[in-house]
């Protein structure tokens, strides 16, 4: 007994421009985790090697570095969210592109989550001395 290819109803092969991948669902928050570990680990190393004076409170080069890195990462994640939003707008309506829309919108939300998480986690560096 042969057939069944019709049962699969696959339609035309996707081309390079129409193929969708799921990496945008994980890249943002994976990079957030890298930033988080780098910040925590970097702070520990800096405090062991060259701790700023506790008398300075939060006004130290270390806090400034933490905040600057966080601002850069927040901006980058925000840009990625904006790019995802634009990409979703370019996707046509209809069932055929539902998968692309799903991944694009989810990626936008996840990049936004990464941006907000970066900003919020770094916020205490405005208030607290780094090595006390």
């Amino acid at each position, binding site marked *: *007994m*042969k*057939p*069944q*290819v*019709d*049962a*699969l*109803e*696959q339609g035309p092969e*996707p081309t390079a421009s129409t*193929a*969708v*991948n*799921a990496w945008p*669902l*994980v890249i943002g*928050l*994976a990079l*957030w*985790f890298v930033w*988080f570990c780098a*910040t*925590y*680990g970097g*702070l*520990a*190393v800096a*405090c*062991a090697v060259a701790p700023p004076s506790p008398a300075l409170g939060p006004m130290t080069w270390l*806090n400034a570095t933490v905040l600057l890195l966080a601002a850069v990462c927040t901006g980058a994640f925000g840009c990625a969210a904006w790019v995802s939003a634009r990409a979703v707008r370019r996707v046509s309506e209809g*069932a055929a592109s*539902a*998968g692309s*829309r*799903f*991944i694009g*919108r*989810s990626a936008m*939300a*996840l990049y936004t*989550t990464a941006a907000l*998480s970066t900003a*919020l*986690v*770094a*916020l*205490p*560096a405005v208030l*607290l*001395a*780094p*090595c*006390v």
Partner: protein
Amino acid sequence: MTERTTTAPPRDPATLHAEFEAVWGNPKGWRALSAVNHTSVARRFMVTGAVFFVIAGLLGMLLRAQLAQPGQGFMGAAAYNQAFTMHGTMMMFLFAVPIQQGLAAYLLPKMLGARDLVFPRLGAFGYWCYLFGGIIFTSSLLLGLAPDAGWFMYTPLSSDTYSPGMGADFWLLGITFIEIATMAAAIDIAVSILRARAAGMGLHQLPIFAWSMLITSLMVIVGFPPLILGSILLELERSAGWAFFDPTRGGDALLWQHLFWLFGHPEVYIIFLPAAGVVSTLVPVFARRPLVGYRWVVVSMIGTGFISFGLWVHHMFAVGIPALSQAFFAMASMLVAIPTGIQLFAWIATLWAGRPVWSVPMLWVCGFLVIFVAGGLTGVMLAFVPFNWQVHDTHFVVAHFHYVLIGGMLFPLIGGIYYWLPHFSGRMPSEQLAKTGFWLTFIGFNGTFLVMHWTGLLGMPRRVYTYDAGLGWDLPNLVSSVFSFVMAFGIATLLLDLALHWRHGRKAPLNPWHADTLEWASGTPPLSYNFASLPRIATRHPLWDTPALPETIAAGQHALPQAAHGRRETLGVDPVSGRVREVIHLPGNSWWPLVAGGMLALLCLALLLKLYLPAVAVALAAVAVLLRWSWENGVHPGAVAGEGHDLPQGLKLHSRTFDGPGLWGMGLTMLADASLFASLLFGWLYLWTVVPGGQPPADSPLGTWPLAVVSALFGAGLWTLRRAVRRLRAGSDAGLKTHLWWAAGLGAAGCGGLLWVLAHAELQPRLRAHDAVLNFTLLFLLLHGALASVLAALQALRVHHGHVSLAAPYEPGVVAMVWQFCTIATALAWAVMALLPMAFAGPP
């Protein structure tokens, strides 16, 4: 919307069933132990998990009986310490994770429109490791040798100085053995969700339970290796005297805490997310409408999965970490509540917008909502550092995590068991007994643990086996103990209901809850092959949109509606779009999983008894068994029946392509390996930074160039192997065998280099933590180099026997991934352990 799904002419369902049963059915009698069918293996997982739950629950009852009154002499300190250690460990490692993986292994292929998980033999092997490991671990109770250092085994309490005897060894070896099962199941489940689904089922149409299990499985793959590494290092410290956590020899006790909680906090969400998936599956069915905010729920689960890896230090707020670092973790701990809250609102909105039908599963879901919200709120309280310090190690924390774990996992799990009970057995539960069981459990639980918050706020520390009268703890402890017995009666009632329903429950119709997901089309109880034909699914609600699917599936009107060829087949799809790529040929019943599991159990026992020479012999035998098992994969004549000329047009068996599930399985295995190696590098850098005087000498004992040479040899082997794969892709298998032998030779030379470094570096792992880490790293690389070399040599032999060729080009690409890991890990070890100290380290 549903597309046209039937094309093939209908066949007689009874004839089809007989044809499929001949290929997929389990053998009878003692040969049933060789069954690898996911339904059978998953049932074993769930039943075994339930047995461990009952044992751990009874231990919990002993603890509550002891604490019921001040000065109670029912248990001594030693017995109490063993009981709470075993209770926590068994609940976390032997019950919560395995039973949910068992539920997932049972349901997922049926939900996804597949006939089995992609690695059925791996699943069976995992089960035997779980069973044997669980028996070995639990036997320590009967022998009076149970571990007593708490479920997180903090050093130095768990070191051989303060925990002499075999108790801690039972924990370290037994749990590591059991984790093999957890990792195997996670890899099997993740690859199955990504690669073995119904045609057309894109990521955006995955059942929500599949999303939750995909995220959970990836979390297991990344989250468990730090604990596996920590357990190996601690066992090496205890049995071989290597210094890792001993501060007098340059180690640090807090390194264990970091490694443990790097696993331990994600573990909470590893336990919660599958349960959340169950709730997201049940609520729409009983609300009789689709889940509100499907995409938001998916995004929330992904967000929870990642953020949960940034919380581990909140278990260590009391160890003396700078305030700013603690604040990072406090903020992340509060953040993780947001995605969980989004899911909660999605469930409430679904109930609000639907027309809910109240039944037994929904009772447990409602119980979950109440209890889990309370547990989540105390979790946010604990994220505040000052409050955390105040209640650290008190009964408040015990109450909090029981609210989170019992509320967040046990209640949804029982709801899910009642929901899928007609699927498991073909019978309905007793409404009356089920409701009685729920209310006794709900009231008993809250009476026990709500009151325990106050006991903790009154200052009662956890892990004390008795207390004096007059501290204000008498009454709340008595109330907790009384209600804990009410809860135990509730659980007993529910177990009675489950046992009775098997015989006395009324017959269940095919889809008793009018559910939308595909598992209800696979029969109640299910068929061994799930589906006689595989439908195209382009909707999230296949049974709501096409109620006739069960009939057309059974009549063979969809894809792959035959089994006369003797192969176990399911469709392999593109992970994102669900477009069919190939036909996955699944292996059948086998004794290898049981034999391999048995060998590893013997190895575990030999290590426990410190019989190291027999352990080496057993380890070599186990490797031989595993390699012999691997010989049967792919196109080995024993594994393939027929040539596949009867496949749908344009499709091949996966072994005839470059892209089968094994490639993905190996990729995820290497991801776990990378997580373990990253934890090792973290340990090295941590000791360097934290331990006073812990800087390695600038002149590394490994020398500057030896590891570079080894990296180059492994790199050359990788290049050779990849060249062979490129040629295969280009349509030529000329020189294939030679390339593989060259790769094996280069790998062997690399291993020789590592042995030379080990012999000449003059490392003293018993004296210095620094040397212990270096020694362990070299052995880790040697093990991987040897594995890569043996696998390459085995491939060359398979080419010689015709199992790998232009027609069957799949396997070398899989082996190349091991080589890739090996090369990168060696190069990183060279950079971090030989080069970095030259730039930053202190004088020799």
